């Protein structure tokens, strides 16, 4: 079962990278989720808001259509409101201060041999690991 997950992970990864490649080669833009939505909501991306909105429309609207083929998709997201708010704030502030998230720094940065992208990726993976280990095994919250 796990091995099959890895194959689908790799296939999905190729699609994610393909999307980034399409966005770069056609539009000349870096596919970073936090940057695309962040620039739209804080006004810094006013000059190309249509392009941002179109990307978000595709990203938000297509997966639920595709999910119909799967029957049900269980995302197993917590229903702890305080955890959700804390995590949302940390992700929102953090990605905008660092100027990127998993897609921008991780996928688009590392593939360009960007040291900043690699450094950011190492830091957020370590921080994520510490958070999971602490809140799961030490505090037993998640």
């Amino acid at each position, binding site marked *: 079962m796990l091995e099959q997950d890895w194959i689908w992970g790799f296939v999905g990864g190729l699609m994610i990278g393909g999307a980034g490649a399409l966005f770069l080669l056609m539009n*000349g833009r870096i596919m970073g989720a936090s940057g695309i939505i962040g620039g739209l909501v804080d006004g810094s991306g006013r000059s190309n808001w249509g392009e941002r909105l179109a990307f978000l429309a595709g990203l938000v609207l297509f997966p639920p259509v595709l999910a119909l083929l799967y029957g049900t998709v269980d995302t197993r997201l917590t229903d702890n409101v305080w955890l959700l708010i804390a995590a949302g704030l940390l992700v929102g502030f953090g990605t905008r201060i660092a100027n990127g998230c998993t897609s921008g720094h*991780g996928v688009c940065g590392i593939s360009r041999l960007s040291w900043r992208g690699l450094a950011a990726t190492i830091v957020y993976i370590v921080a994520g690991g510490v958070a999971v280990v602490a809140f799961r095994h030490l505090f037993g919250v998640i």
Partner: protein
Amino acid sequence: MMRAVFSALSGALFGAGLLVSGMVDTVKVQGWLDVFGAWDPTLAFVMGGAILPMAIAWIVAERRKTSVLGTPIPAKPNQKLDTNLILGSAMFGAGWGLVGLCPGPALAASFLNGVSGLVFLVAMVAAMVATPALRRALTAIGDTAWTSAR
């Protein structure tokens, strides 16, 4: 117009990839971060799979200088590591680990995560809206400390 079309196509393919790869499953993502639990290596395969076509795209793009639709290929940013990059990434990582959501999958699963997903998205977007003001405030405090120290 063409830019919007290809932008929407990229977004849709990105979302499809996140769904197919299992990255919208928050427990799976946390399982990859949980090195002391039942470690799930799937995310490493997703990252590897994504970096492969993207690396080829960068090689092609940097040779072409402009995109197919005529926009310039973004220059490689200054490679200096700064406090914002490290501090921001640490904050982001902590939030990512807490609930297993990063911006891409959070948006892709807007209609799959129920009310919990909306709570996360509202908090995330609110923080994104507030970031420029926070940045200005911190700079102001920093400037005061700096000038009074002199």
